[in-house]
């Protein structure tokens, strides 16, 4: 049956195969990134509606002037598990935007909820021209295109905790990682800014956030949220994770039921197997 040796060997094998995926990341020296407490982490993680709404506000008022989100539709904003806007609110929001449409007169028309978020620039060249040659990346899946590298052996634990919040952790660290002046000895190219976590440290994006730049309106009975760069960064990072994974909450809910079922089913299967094999020396 399951003797200790078999179990140990199985664990060793699984660990062996799990090891290397992150090995690449651990071997490159990268700055330490503080992991944040995200409401959407872990088995029971769901997005915090209020945080997503605040993050959306930061995105809309600050980021959206340069960063598009071509895969995100207005209708997503009213879907369950997201920022929790009503369909009317989303309709009204869409009305404020114009989207490109070849069939419309003049090539543009007012947006409807089914439309995707319009890009702030018509072409990549326009985007580069407006940003000193740098291309502001699209936000649609950006939160999943970034990650955090843990040193050995810590990343091995990630397979068991299911740590998938490296993207938001990185974005938060990036937004709070600006320095007014580069450290002595670092040659900062003109038009670039010094950032702790950006690869190469010279980033084309000027520090986008300052304390108080976005005004949050607290709902009645809610506690005031601090208007700080740190808070904005968390909120917008959470919102970007939602843009990349709008159905995360539903996925985890289904997953919990599936896992529970599989564990119970495995138990029943094991009992049946023992019953069938009863009395057979093997």
């Amino acid at each position, binding site marked *: 049956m399951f003797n200790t040796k078999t179990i140990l060997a199985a664990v060793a094998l699984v660990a062996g*195969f799990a090891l290397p995926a992150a090995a*690449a990341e651990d071997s490159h020296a990268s700055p330490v990134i503080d992991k944040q407490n995200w409401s959407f982490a872990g088995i029971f993680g769901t997005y915090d509606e209020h945080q997503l709404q605040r993050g959306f506000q930061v995105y809309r008022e600050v980021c959206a002037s340069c960063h598009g989100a071509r895969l995100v539709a207005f209708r997503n904003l009213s879907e369950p598990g997201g920022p929790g806007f009503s369909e009317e609110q989303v309709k009204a929001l869409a009305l404020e935007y114009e989207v490109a449409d070849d069939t419309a007169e003049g090539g543009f028309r007012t947006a409807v909820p089914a439309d995707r978020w319009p890009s702030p620039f018509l072409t990549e060249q326009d985007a580069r021209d407006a940003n000193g040659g740098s291309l502001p990346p699209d936000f649609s899946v950006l939160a999943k295109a970034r990650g955090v590298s843990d040193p050995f052996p810590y990343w091995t634990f990630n397979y068991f905790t299911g740590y998938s919040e490296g993207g938001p952790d990185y974005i938060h660290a990036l937004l709070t990682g600006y320095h007014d002046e580069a450290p002595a000895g670092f040659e900062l190219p003109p038009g670039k800014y010094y950032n702790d976590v950006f690869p190469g440290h010279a980033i084309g994006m000027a520090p986008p956030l300052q304390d108080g730049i976005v005004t949050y309106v607290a709902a009645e009975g809610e506690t005031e949220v601090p208007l700080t760069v740190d808070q904005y960064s968390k909120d917008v990072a959470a919102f970007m994770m939602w843009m990349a994974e709008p159905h995360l909450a539903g996925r985890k809910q289904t997953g919990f039921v599936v896992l529970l079922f599989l564990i119970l089913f495995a138990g029943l299967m094991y009992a*049946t*197997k023992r019953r069938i094999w009863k009395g057979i020396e093997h």
Partner: protein
Amino acid sequence: MGLSPMSEHSSYTPGNSVEKWLDDRLPIIRFSKEHLMDFPTPKNLNYWWTFGAILVMCLGIQIVTGVILAMHYTPHVSMAFDSVEHIRRDVNGGRMIQAFHAVGASMFFAAVYIHIFRGMYFGSYKAPREILWILGVLIFLLMMATAFMGYVLPWGQMSGWAATVITNIFAAIPVIGTPLLELLRGGFSVGNPTLNRFFSLHYMLPFVIAAVVALHIWALHVPGNNNPIGVDVKDKRDTLPFHPYYTMKDAFGMVLFLIPFAWFAFFAPDILGHPDNYIPFNSQVTPAHIVPEWYFLPFYAILRAIDFNILFIDSKLGGVIFFAGSILILFFLPWLDTSKVRSGNFRPMFKWFYWLFAINFVVLTYLGAAPAEGIYVVLAKISTAYYFIHFLVILPLLGRIETPRPLPTSISESVLAKAH
């Protein structure tokens, strides 16, 4: 041996006239009863033997999810990336189907590595199972090709650059290298023709795998299963009918295997991949580190370890020779291992070298992901050398110098000895 159902009198008698009519024309029920139910299987198989069934399940999951994904995917460089996201965001159940397919590839390889290492420990490749083993290595090769081409389809940074790096390997082959490279890519560089032919092949190869799996199982059903003590089945007391004993045990193994599978698919679907693959492919921007999926890393480490010229063979071709050799050598394993004893349990010296080989393989996996600099380069060379020494020196030698422990006379005897 007389135990093979092929040569045995069938226990099947058609239950009614329709079954009789069918049996005289296409004895498919008789065949199924013989091979899926009555098939005599050694009674002492442990849980490592459930991975055969688990692998069939994995192939099934990949084909079913893959066929559905292909209904929604667009193999065009300007649309492939977004169409995968479209599946995740807009297609009903799409995010789960996509996650199962992507995670499924990793689980498939995890299972196949366990299956291969089980065969290596218990000497399942030895006579009369050489063809069975060779077909298995062929399946492994086909799986690698299929997985690689599948990884290219989402057209992210790692997809495109993996396609670039891996197709480049073929350019090292003398004379036919460059034409072969252009044939694989459908042009001088990785682009839309590459994506189209990879998509086409990625759809076709799983069915080739399924066909070779059928041969693999056929080759298994001629000599029957090996078993943990490696002693041939002597009489009926050594075996159990496949159904219900092993159908049940395998089914339990499959459900157990689905638990980590579901864990990754539902709670960390991206943890086995690389974040860079969420950036659309750009042939003008090279990622800082191009890393293949984890299941290719040991062989990738071997490819990179050869960074020096050997006589007239330059380092690039040398790497390709060792890379190909590391897999092709498996075809010759039945003849490289000279010991007559199958199971590692009765081979005191082999046991140590087996685990050393397994650890070395994990080290190679680690090194495949490490940057090619400093100590890693030296370690990769040592590990690569040891990989080949194991097959070419240790295994042939062990069979001559090792004194195996006495074997039980039969499976029944060993089972009874264990029970008391």
